[in-house]
Structure formats: C-alpha cells, structure tokens
C-alpha cells in the first residue's frame, strides 16, 4: 500500500439530464434511441444538450449537469468539492456513490466507496434503536459481524443507551440523527464520500461529529471526498479543493483550500446586486478575501468622480452574513462625518475594527450619498470575504449562534 498511490480516478465523467416533464415524448425518444443502438450508432440525444446554466434559457431539452470531469485522488487525501447551488456537486456525489450512473466516462477506484449522502437511510420507525443500527449498517455496506463487533462503541457514541431497545419512532429527531451518525462514523471503507450531513443535530453533537470526521481523515488516514457549503469546515478538513461551476471543474488539478475558497468567494461577486450605479460616480472596491479571526477588516475604495464639482458624501456600509443579516452596519450620517470627494480619481481606505466576528462568509453592501441624500452609488454583494480561524485561536470549529464572539472574563469573588 503506497502512500502516494492514486486511489480514485475519474475520467471524462459527464451526466446528461432531460429537462421538462418526463413522460411527454419519452416513448418516441426511447424508440429512436433504441433504433440507433441496434444499428450500432451513437445515441442521437447525446450530441445535443447545453451546459447547465440555470439563468439562461436554452433551446435544447437536454442539459449537461456534468461535463468532462477528470480528477484523481490519492490515498489519505481529503478532497473538498465546492461550488454554487446547481454547479453539479450533488450529481457528482450521486455518481461517486453509485446511486446513478454517468452518461459517459468512468470512475476507477482501488477501494470500497461508502457514501454518506444522508444519515439514517432506511431507518424504520417500528424497529428498536439496536435493530436499526444493524439495518442501517448493513445498508451502508457493513456485515453483521462488523456491526456486532462495534455495536457497543456505536451506542456509546450516539449517547442513546437508555433508549436503545425502544422503537425509533419514539425518539426525538435529534436522537435519531445522533444514532444515525454514530453508525456512519464507524464505517470503515477505504474511500468515504460525505455530503453536508453535518448540518444536523445540536451544537454539541455537531462539534462531536466534526471532531470524529477530523479523526477519520487525519488520524486514520482515510481517503475522504467532502462536499460542503461550509467554508470553514472545508478549510479545516480538506487538503485539496476542486471547484465546480456549471458542471465543469474550474481549477483542473485542485487548489489548496485557502486559494480555492478565495476564488470561490470571488466567483460569487459576479452575482452582485446593483441598485444605483451612475456613470458620473464610479466606485471600485478591493479587499482581502480571507481574514483571520479578530483581524481588522480593510476595504480600499477607488472612486472616480466625473461630476463637474466636488462632492460632500456620506459612505455607509454593512457586513452581511449568509442569512442576509446585518452583522455590522456603519453609518457616517449618524455620526455626522462626511468626506469630500474631489473631481477625478481618489482612493479611500476604510479600516474597520473587527469585534470578534464569528467565522463564516460575509458580503458587503456599500451605499454612498451626498449631502442632499441623493444616492450616488448603491451595490449589494460588492465584496465578499471569509473569516477563518487562521491563527487557531478557537478550539476546533465553534458553533456559535451570535454574530460576535464576546470576550468574557470570569473572576471568583
């Protein structure tokens, strides 16, 4: 068993889907396809099809959810797969876990693949926790012997000892998830494919789950393919990251997590929402995309004033999290500060103190108006950045509900 050996190789993986209703015209297409097949010709519907871009309306009924995906994974690597919604991540996962076949191409592996697209697949409410552990384990590919040898550990890890011989339908949803994840955590395939199953359970359990995942990938040297939207989880778990966009790999050989996340964040900027953008008043923004926890947040504005006169302006900005909640909101007007923007080009640096903002991805809303409250510039999503635990100041990944992590001193008196 060589450490640097390629354990999984994907070659020209493509997946085609048919749009619209299944059922209309399928028989005629099926017959036509069959007619081509018996004459030894290629599938006539494989030639058509367009790349998968939700926004644009295409002419073809067929669409490529994945196109020419090639990648290799080495033994012991933790490969992250990131991309926007609809980029093809789930389709790739489904093909890797053999739930659906590729339209073209091959994936070759040197080990058993087990996939966790969901926890608790096949759980039956009428059966007891213990019976479900056996059933779920077997569905995930374990033999009865393997499960029997681990059952005590599984039950202990789940923390459901008291209920283990009670039907699962009497469990709370949290307990079901715990039990289900416990089974999955004790899977021992050579290659583990994981979807965002960690977005379940309470905070304590999530932390336990991520800790277990780190053990699996680091300590036990397992090969893991990890798909997630949670950039901090990707950053802390993965050794290499590939990015998908519209069904294609954007960075062919993958990138280090930091680089990949930065590029992924930049990709998102193209979705900026423009509210006001006057030709007389042009604004460009520059910022660092991965910012350490507690590090000051700095933006550099490049303003081009094409009006005939200087402008007295107020600059407001907000830092918005993934749930579109304002984490920080700065209003110069409220503080009675204003700035004189001369005709021509000008550079402004906004240096914001970082009040311990929680790890995560953020976007920026920028809003500039003059003394008469006339809006000169207004864009949402103009810049994006991630706050990451670069200096390892927080233990593991904190699941903190607040926007800001307070610094608390405890003193006994």
């Amino acid at each position, binding site marked *: 068993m*060589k450490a640097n050996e390629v354990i999984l190789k994907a070659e020209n993986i493509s997946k085609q889907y048919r749009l619209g209703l299944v059922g209309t015209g399928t028989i005629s297409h099926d017959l036509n396809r069959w007619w081509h097949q018996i004459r030894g010709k290629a599938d006539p519907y494989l030639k058509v099809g367009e790349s998968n871009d939700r926004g644009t309306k295409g002419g073809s009924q067929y669409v490529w959810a994945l196109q020419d995906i090639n990648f290799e994974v080495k033994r012991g690597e933790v490969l992250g797969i990131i991309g926007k919604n609809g980029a093809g991540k789930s389709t790739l996962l489904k093909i890797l876990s053999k739930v659906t076949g590729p339209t073209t191409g091959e994936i070759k592996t040197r080990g058993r693949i087990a996939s966790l697209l969901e926890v608790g697949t096949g759980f039956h409410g009428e059966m007891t926790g213990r019976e479900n552990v056996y059933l779920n384990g077997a569905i995930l590919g374990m033999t009865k012997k393997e499960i029997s040898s681990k059952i005590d550990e599984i039950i202990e890890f789940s923390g459901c000892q008291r209920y283990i011989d009670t039907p699962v339908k009497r469990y709370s949803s949290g307990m079901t998830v715990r039990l289900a994840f416990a089974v999955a955590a004790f899977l021992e395939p050579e290659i583990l494919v994981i979807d965002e199953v960690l977005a379940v359970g309470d905070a304590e359990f999530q932390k336990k789950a991520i800790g277990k995942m780190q053990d699996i990938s680091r300590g036990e040297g397992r090969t893991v393919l990890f798909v997630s939207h949670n950039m901090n989880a990707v950053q802390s778990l993965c050794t290499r990251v590939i990015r998908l966009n519209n069904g294609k790999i954007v960075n062919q050989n993958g990138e280090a997590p930091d680089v990949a996340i930065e590029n992924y964040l930049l990709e998102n900027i193209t979705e900026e929402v423009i509210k006001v953008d006057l030709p007389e008043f042009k604004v460009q923004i520059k910022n660092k995309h991965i910012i350490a926890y507690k590090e000051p947040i700095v933006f550099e504005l490049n303003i081009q004033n094409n009006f005939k006169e200087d402008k007295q302006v107020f600059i407001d900005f907000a830092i918005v999290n993934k749930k579109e909640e304002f984490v920080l909101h700065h209003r110069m007007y409220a503080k009675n500060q204003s700035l004189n923007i001369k005709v021509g080009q000008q550079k402004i640096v906004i240096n914001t103190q970082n009040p311990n903002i929680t790890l995560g991805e953020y976007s920026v809303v920028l809003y500039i108006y003059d003394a008469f409250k006339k809006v000169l510039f207004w864009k949402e999503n103009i810049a994006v950045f991630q706050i990451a635990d670069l200096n390892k100041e927080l233990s593991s990944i904190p699941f903190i509900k607040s926007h800001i992590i307070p610094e608390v001193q405890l003193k006994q008196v």
Partner: protein
Amino acid sequence: MDTKATSQDWLYTISPKKKLIDLNFKEIWRYRDLLFLFVKRDIITQYKQTVLGPLWYFIQPLFTSIIFTLIFNNLAAIPTGNGIPSFLFNLAGITSWNYFSSCLSGTSDTFKANQGIFGKVYFPRVITPLSVVFSNLIKFGIQLLVFVSFYIYFVFFTDKAFNAVPQTAILLIPIVIAFMGLFGLGFGMIISSLTTKYRDLTFLVGFGVQLLMYASAVMYPLSYFKEKVPDYAWLVEYNPMTTIIELFRYMTLGIGEFSMSKFLYAGVISVAFFLIGLVIFNKTEKTFIDTV
C-alpha cells in the same frame, strides 16, 4: 507518479452500464446480511401494533377460502372432485396463488417504493425484490401449515376427504414453490423497471393481478373450465400459473394428472421470466433515479 505501473489493478469501476447481464454475484453475496435484515424487518414490522398480530397470516386465506367455497361451490356448484372437500381445494389454490401474487405485487413497485433509500445509498438493488420473495416465503410457509392442519383434520376426523391422497410427485413440491417465486419475482421486476418511466403500469397491476387470478384456475379445476368454456380454455391452459396451481393441487390432493411436459413448461416460463426480469431490472437500476 506511479500511475503507469499500477494502472491495471483497479478494484472497482463505475461506468455507464453497457453489458446485457452485468450481475456481480460476489457483491450480492457480500450483502447477504442485508438481505437477511430486510426479511427480518418485513416480518417483524408488518403486524406491529395490531391486536391479532401474526394471526392475520392465518385469517386471510381462511376467510377467502370460506367465501370461495360458499360462492363458487355452494352457490355456483363448481365440482371439485369426489371425495375432496371444496374448502380444502380452495385453500390449496389460494395458498399457492397468494404466494405468487404477493411476490408479484411486492416486487412490482420496488423502485418507486424505495426511491428514498435508492437515491441515497448504493447496494445491489436486486437485494430488495429478493427480500420480498423471501419474506413472502416465510408467510407462505405459515399458510402452508394452516393448509396441512385442515388437511389432517379432514382426512382423520371426517369422512369427506377419502380421495385426497398426496402423490409421490410431492417430492417435487419445493421446485414448484420455487417456480411460483421466480415467476412472481421476474414478472414483478419487469413491471417495477417499466413503472419508473411509465406509471400507467401501476394501475394495471392493481386490478390485473385480480383478473389474472380468475384465469389461473384458483377456484375451479382446469378440466371443468375446458368442459364448460372450450373456446377460451386455451387462455387458462397456457397461463403458467394455472399449470403451477394444478401441479400443486395434484401433488397435495391428487386432483388431476401429472405430466412432465406441464412441469417443464411451468419451469421454462418461470425461469425465462426471472432472467428477463433480471436483465431489465439491471438495466434500469443505474438510471432510474433520474426518471422515477
């Protein structure tokens, strides 16, 4: 990189399925525990939270036989042969028909009923219909016990069953039971594969199975049908289920006659259906999640 040197020894390959039969028996064997656990799940969860529990296994064929005897033998006066109680005749037919029909309807919605599991995790899909056939086999075994009990009752405690004599061919009964299972499984797999695309079949199965029962000589002997409706008798005669049920009744009760050609006919049809079902099922298994 050392990919060149070791590029031959890939363990698994995921590719678009091209071969006609691409069954990995080794893999199915590796998942045998899952098969066992599925069967166990089906058995123990079926009658949970019912008062009568497994008694339902007995009640259903018993009551059907009673009704059939009342309607078809007492009211419609269909003869079941001298010295053979109609009730026993019907019970034999219903028990064997039930096994076939529960295999058929149980496997015919495999893909639709399991799309939740199938969409999330891979295991050899054939395990699911196989588990249906095995759990129904256990159910059939229990119902066979009911049949045997009534058989003993009629033979030893009444004088109505003086002609009901098991034949030596009864030694072949496990094979006949296998035919029922294979035929139901094969038929069910074909339907389940087609229903992923064409839902119409779901409706057809519902009443189709019921109609088929009337054409399978469950509540009448084939010879009587031939005598009364000779024009359409071929419809019943070439129905493999008729042959199977007649064989079952011959072996257990000694009604009708045994012919090797009939036995082979039932066998060939059942195995053919099973193989065709397997091929179609296998072809569907890779892509059904996109169409279901």
